[in-house]
């Protein structure tokens, strides 16, 4: 008796059955692996967060004390973009305990009179720590309000005495294959690099960040030292920085290299300049309202236009996105 065939399978498909078999095997094996991994992640001891309390005073810098509702610690530490640990929002929380943050040194070099290597403890003592409440707007269309601890990056740059020819500041972050499983992800050129114009880096709102929520930084948030530039999309705020270099030429930046038509060097928050694949007019504010909360209107320079607008006077923000 002939088996009824609802659809005649093309010969090419029929011939691929061996490949199919192999792939089915691989899929099944990886499925089991993923399942086991998920169980392991949930059952092992709670997230190692070697965070300790950090003393601070409320910042006096204009614009540094946003009155928006601060996101819960849990949201700020479980929903992160830190591709060195994987591209899922939960990967940094699950993987970043591997990161070794002590000893840690930051090299500040380039067009400066006093190139210096700072130990992380030197950085914590350099200037009194301030608490600043900033809105953080991700290029993906969500935002959170975070109480950061740190001081203006200008304090550090002043210490190394920039030369007159310095026009830009480049940041390079840690890329350690031993501890960062996400480095296998090929979309970005590791180590992650970011950059600012020198006047942007010297702006008082640009924060050299050593802590958050009254404690030192948790690993997934860029421990032990990161940048926070509140009027730019979040990826400009490089995490786990190891080198700061003053340059004359505009430095290469990781996302701009990866997709130049999508991520510009400036990447200022701007509701009028859309990402090629989605609108930037609105954002989802995380940590308040839950499932039924409405999206908020995104503000030019993330609401810091009064403080930073003059940095871009006369510039075409569409072209310099």
């Amino acid at each position, binding site marked *: 008796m002939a*088996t009824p065939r609802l659809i005649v*399978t093309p010969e090419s498909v029929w011939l691929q*059955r061996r490949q199919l078999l192999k792939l089915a095997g691989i899929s099944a094996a990886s499925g089991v692996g993923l399942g086991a991994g998920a169980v392991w992640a949930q059952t092992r001891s709670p997230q190692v967060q070697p965070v300790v309390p950090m003393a601070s005073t409320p910042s006096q810098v204009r614009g540094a004390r946003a009155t928006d509702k601060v996101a819960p610690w849990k949201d700020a530490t479980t929903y992160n973009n830190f591709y060195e640990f994987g591209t899922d*929002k939960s990967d940094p929380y699950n993987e970043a305990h591997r990161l070794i943050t002590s000893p840690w040194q930051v090299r500040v070099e380039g067009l400066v009179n006093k190139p210096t290597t700072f130990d992380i403890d030197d950085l914590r003592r350099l200037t009194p720590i301030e608490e600043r409440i900033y809105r953080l707007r991700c290029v993906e269309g969500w935002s959170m309000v975070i109480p950061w601890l740190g001081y203006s990056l200008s304090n550090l740059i002043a210490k190394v005495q920039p030369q007159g020819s310095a026009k830009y500041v480049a940041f390079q972050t840690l890329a350690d294959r031993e501890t960062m499983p996400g480095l296998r992800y090929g*979309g970005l050129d590791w180590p992650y690099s970011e950059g600012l114009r020198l006047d942007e880096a010297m702006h008082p709102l640009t924060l050299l960040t050593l802590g958050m929520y009254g404690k030192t930084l948790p690993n997934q948030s860029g421990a032990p030292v990161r940048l926070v530039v509140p009027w730019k999309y979040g*990826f400009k705020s490089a995490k786990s920085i190891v080198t700061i270099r003053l340059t004359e030429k505009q430095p290469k930046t990781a996302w701009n290299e990866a997709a130049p038509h999508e991520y510009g060097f400036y990447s200022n928050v701007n509701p009028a300049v859309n990402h090629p694949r989605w*609108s930037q007019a609105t954002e989802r504010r995380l940590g308040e309202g839950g*499932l039924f909360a409405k999206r908020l209107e995104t503000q030019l320079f993330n609401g810091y236009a009064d403080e930073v607008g003059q940095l871009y006077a006369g510039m075409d923000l569409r072209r310099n996105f």
Partner: protein
Amino acid sequence: MTESLRRRAGWRIRFPRWVKPTIFTACLLPFAYLLWAAFANQLGANPAETLIRSTGDWVLRGLCLVLLLTPLSNWIQTPALVSLRRMLGLFVYFYVTLHLISYALFDMGLDLVAIVADGLMSSNARSSRWVCWRLCCSQRWLSHRLTQWFARWAVSGGSSYTAPSM
């Protein structure tokens, strides 16, 4: 023919009665979990995104499974497998509907202008053929052109919420 041989042959042509209800229930489990998680506030920092992502993921998994059924039933010579295709296909449709409702209601707040604008922008996006290739393994298996097109569209719609690089 011995009884056991007959039983084995019968299994190949038609599944026992309990198979379909079991698979039906299994297909409802992701929905049940999401429903529970939504009410128990277990969807994470970005609940709307979690709903949209996981319903979208289940659509892609279901789509791959449905498209695999026919070649698989030929290969292991078990025609009964084909009898699951319609039910699984309808479940894909069910999760597509949930996916679109989650997007329109929870992400866009039923703002039609924003939805249309967003749709136009993502259809303008670069080809996401390679994303589909990666997720669906090899398009050469996907014998139905419409389904291929749909899979591609589904992935490109979802990609707005994936890594910025994609």
